[in-house]
Structures are given as C-alpha cells and as structure tokens.
C-alpha cells in the first residue's frame, strides 16, 4: 500500500500533468446531471478557447435550455439569448464587433424548434459565427419533452407512448439542411461518448473556431449527445442507446467544408 502511494507520488508531479481542467473553466460545479454531455462539450470549448488564446475576444451566446447557465462555467464574456434566438443575438454581436469571435451554444429544442428561422437565416446570411448544437433528442431543461430530433418510437414526457409520425411528425435532420445553405462554411456532426470521439469533437470545435477567425461563413458543429435524465437511463446506458439508435439517423462526420458558396449562382445574369 505504501509502495503504491510512493509510486503515485512519483508520477503525480506538475511536470507530468498531461491533462487537467482547462484554465478557461471556472471553479464552479456544473449544475448538470451526472454524465451529461453538456459538461464534456463545455470543457472542449474552454480548451479550444485557451489553445487559440482567444479568451479576451470571444463572446458566447448561451441559450435557454439546460445550458442556460453556461456563462457560469466558461470564463469569457457571455450574452444570454431568449429561447431560440441565439443566432440573432450572435448576429447582432458579430455585426457590431466584427473583430470578435462569437459563438452560440444551443440545444435541439432551441436551435431546431422555436429557433428554426433564426438558425436558417443566420447561416444563410453566412454570419461569421460558430454554432455549437447539442442534439440530445429531448428537451432536457423542461423535464424531457419531445424535441424536433426525437426519434420515432422514442418515449418522452410528451410522447409517453413513443413518438408517432402522424401525431408528432418526423425527426428533423436540420444539420443536413444547414449543410446545404450557401452561407455555411463548415458543418460537422460529432459525438463525445468515447475518448476517441471526444478527441475528434475537440478537433472539430477547434477547426470551427479557427475558421471563424477567417470570416468565411458560419461554422456549425453538431454534437450528438445524451440526456440520461430525460431518457431515464444511466449515463453508460445512454451512450449505448445513442450509438444504437441515434447514430443511424444522425451519422457522424463532416457534412460541408471549404467555406461559403461562391456567389456566381446567386447573381443576376450578366447583361
């Protein structure tokens, strides 16, 4: 036992630290349920902001949703946004302070239900912002109601017998639509259920923030996520459920890369 302690003391030295809490994260325990994906994504954003050295020029727009208190956790300037309006708020910020890096952080209810118009139009204008989209197929904050991305058959508090297409409509694959908007620069779908996935997601978020410095259009990162409370499973089961049920409909990977579309196709014809 003493031997083990000795050995650990040897390893646990500042110079051997290879992964710790990001300095851009505040020392506040997050209010999220145990195992919630929000926490992982917060961490990645903080890490990227730290890596890129843009803490002093980044403005976050926090949504209405479980991440409503995001401003308590990531140590940057933040603006709240009413439910669904984060892309409009971010547009206002970015247009008025074009030298800043502006990002929104939104859930599926926020981004793909009430905020559909703001989402589509901000991206179609090619606003030079980053959008982080937490798709957990449910309204976490309000207690687990159906979200636009809820699967058919999935049980939520407003689809207690499973989502039914006639009663409730189809799941909305909004990221697929977004990828087709000419103003989108980079659109990718990631996940954070394994360490490998987390590393890929971090890369994607970093790329989004990097591209955003070049003002080449909207960078959009969907993270397929879990909401174990809403789903009424434990965090580990939730990950399995997500892999099994959500990935087929929301396959991971890049959907668009390379900046806004050329304007040719959208112009008046030459005289």
């Amino acid at each position: 036992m003493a031997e083990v302690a000795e050995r650990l003391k040897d390893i646990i030295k500042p110079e051997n630290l290879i992964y710790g809490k990001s300095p851009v994260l505040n020392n506040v325990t997050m209010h999220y349920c145990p195992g919630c994906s929000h926490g992982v994504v917060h961490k990645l954003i903080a890490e990227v902001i730290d890596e890129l050295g843009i803490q002093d020029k980044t403005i976050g727009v926090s949504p209405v949703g479980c991440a409503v208190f995001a401003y308590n956790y990531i140590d940057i300037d933040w603006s709240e946004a009413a439910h669904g309006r984060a892309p409009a708020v971010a547009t206002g910020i970015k247009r008025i302070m074009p030298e800043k890096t502006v990002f929104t952080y939104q859930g599926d209810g926020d981004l793909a239900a009430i905020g559909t118009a703001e989402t589509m139009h901000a991206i179609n204008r090619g606003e030079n912002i980053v959008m982080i989209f937490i798709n957990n197929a449910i309204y976490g904050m309000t207690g687990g109601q159906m979200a636009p991305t809820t699967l058919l058959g999935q049980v939520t508090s407003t689809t207690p017998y499973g989502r039914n297409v006639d009663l409730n409509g189809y799941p909305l694959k909004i990221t697929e639509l977004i990828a087709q908007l000419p103003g989108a620069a980079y659109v990718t779908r990631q996940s954070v259920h394994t360490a490998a996935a987390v590393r890929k997601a971090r890369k994607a978020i970093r790329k989004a923030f990097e591209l955003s410095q070049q003002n080449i259009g909207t960078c959009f990162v969907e993270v397929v996520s879990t909401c174990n409370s809403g789903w009424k499973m434990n965090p580990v089961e939730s990950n399995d459920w997500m892999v099994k049920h959500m990935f087929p409909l929301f396959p991971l990977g890049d959907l668009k890369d390379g900046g806004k579309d050329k304007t040719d196709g959208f112009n008046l014809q030459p005289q």
Partner: protein
Amino acid sequence: MGELRLMKGNEVIAEAAIRCGCDGYFGYPITPQSEVMESLMAQRPWETTGMVVLQAESEIASIHMVYGAAGCGKRVMTSSSSPGISLMAEGISYIAGSELPCVIVNVQRGGPGLGTIQPSQADYYQATKGGGHGDYSLLVLAPASVQEMHDFVALGFDLAYKYRNPVMILADGVIGQMMEKVELMDQRPRWTDEQVKEITGSWATLGKTKDRSKHVITSLEMDSHIMEENNLRLQAKYNKMKQEDVRYETILCEDAEYVLVAFGSAARICQKTVQLAREKGHKVGLLRPITLFPFPEKPIEELASRIKGFMTVEFNAGQMVHDVKLVVNGKTKVEYFGRMGGILPSPDEVEQALLQKLIGG
C-alpha cells in the same frame, strides 16, 4: 443653425440615427415605417460613419440582434409598427430585464390584429404598461412633430444610456408619413472603442480581459432573493425617471379652465382646437405629455386642483385617460374623446366634443 430639410418623419429617424452616431439598426419592413430602413440603406452609413444596417428575417430576429449588439455597449436601435412591436414583446422584456440601453421606434397603426395601416395611438398601454411579461417599464417618448422625431433619437440614446433601459419612441402613421421642415443636427462621430469602454466597460460584453472578471448579459436569476433585488433595482430606476426625466409641454394652461391632454399627433390637432376654442372665448389649454412613461403627474396634479376639467384626446378607445384619472384622483372631471380605425378627428370635431363633454355639460 443646423441644416434645414423638408423630410418625412420616418426618413428623419434614419437621418438622425446616422447623425447622432448610432452604431447599428436592425429591422424588418412594415407599413407605415418602412422608409426608416429604406432611407438607411440608401445612405449606406456603413461606408461613412461605420453604422451597421441589417434587414433581419423578422421583428423577432431584429429585437434579438438589438439585444446582442446593445449588450456590447453599442448604441443600436430598431423600428417597427404595432404588430411588429407585439412580436418583440418577449425580446423587449428580456432587454428591460437585462438592463440594456437601446432605442425602439413604434410608428403605430390601427389594431387589433392586422387591423389597418392607418394611424393610431392604440399601443399606449402596450408601451407604458409593459406589453411583455414581468414588471418593467420602457421610457416612452411621444414625438409630435418631424423635428421631434429627429430630436428624440439622440435624446432617446442619451436616456437609454443614462438608465441602461430601453427607450421607446412612440410615434404614429401621421408623424411617420408627414413631411415638415427639420433642422438636422451636425454629424457626430460614433463612440470610439475607448469611449465605449469608458462608458459601458463595467458591464458590456467586450471580451473578457485578464484584468477583470467576465461580463454576462442576462435577465435570469433563479435565487428568488436576488431576483427580487433585481426587480427592486428596476423599480428604483423607474422612480428615478419619475424624478428626473418627466417631459411635457403646456400651451395656454396658465389661465385655463379646461385642459386637453393629448400626445403625439393628437396633440397637434388639439393645438388647433385650443385656438378655435379660445377664439370663441373658452379658456382652454393643452397639456402634452412628451414622456408617456414617466407620466407627467405633477403638472396634471397641479392643474387638477384648479381647473374645471380635463379631456384626453386619443386615437384609441381611451387609454391615457386612465393615467390622467389616476393622477387627478377625483379632484376634477376627466373625460375622454377619441377616434379609432385610422380616422383622425379634425380640430373642430375635438372642439365640439369638448363643448359637449366638459364645457357645455
């Protein structure tokens, strides 16, 4: 003296915005005020003062763009007309709750619903009693001339920043569409980054530097005790407005036995009514609230104790009349006369109502 021009009320809003150094305008077309954005777009201020002008996808997006930009300590505004203002109700409540300064112009048309595009003053309640949810107040300015449409833009920003509170310019289709001679202010520069930092640096989202803790623009507070404090702080601010920023105009009230109370274009009509009535020997005056919130309680209270009666004249079913009654508190008669649906009463029609309801009765 500044440059003289003959301009529409709506156009002058745009001109005044550029000249007073406004940083940004976000809006969506709606009659009778679409010329505001059209004039801005025609002027291309982004090439001169650097002012941002953006046509949003809706009034909802507009007001939330204002939210974002105002949170950066920039002087931004939007304009719309009645139905569009209703759509902003949630956003305005958020702006008030987050204590963001900005200017919102409502060039009123007749409601409810789609109603008519003709002029109206039926959004008085909405403007002064909070169309959105929760306890909040806008500081509401009611211009009665194209010149005031001009002046109140700069004044609006000053007051908005004085109180960190949204200011509404409550105009109507008459003032929006009317052309009058207006003296334009000289072009003022927009605030420099340094000025913005000096004025708003304690709260605006300008980017968190090492030397300060983060700024958060929010109206959210889950701790009831802190939330109540926030509410009390707002109320204290509104009380301060009542102390320091009541504005009104009186015309021939010194010796008046009867006083018309009217704002905006209704007050213009009443001005002539006063003239007509005086010509016939009736001692009539006019009190024109310029700030609808804070409401000019003192002058009304003073008059209440010595005149024979008030009559409000409104292009609505009788809204401001209740604020007058609240102040008068039974001390003298308070009547209301109004027209609706876009019909504008003529000065002699008002005179007749005055005779019937007050002087004759």
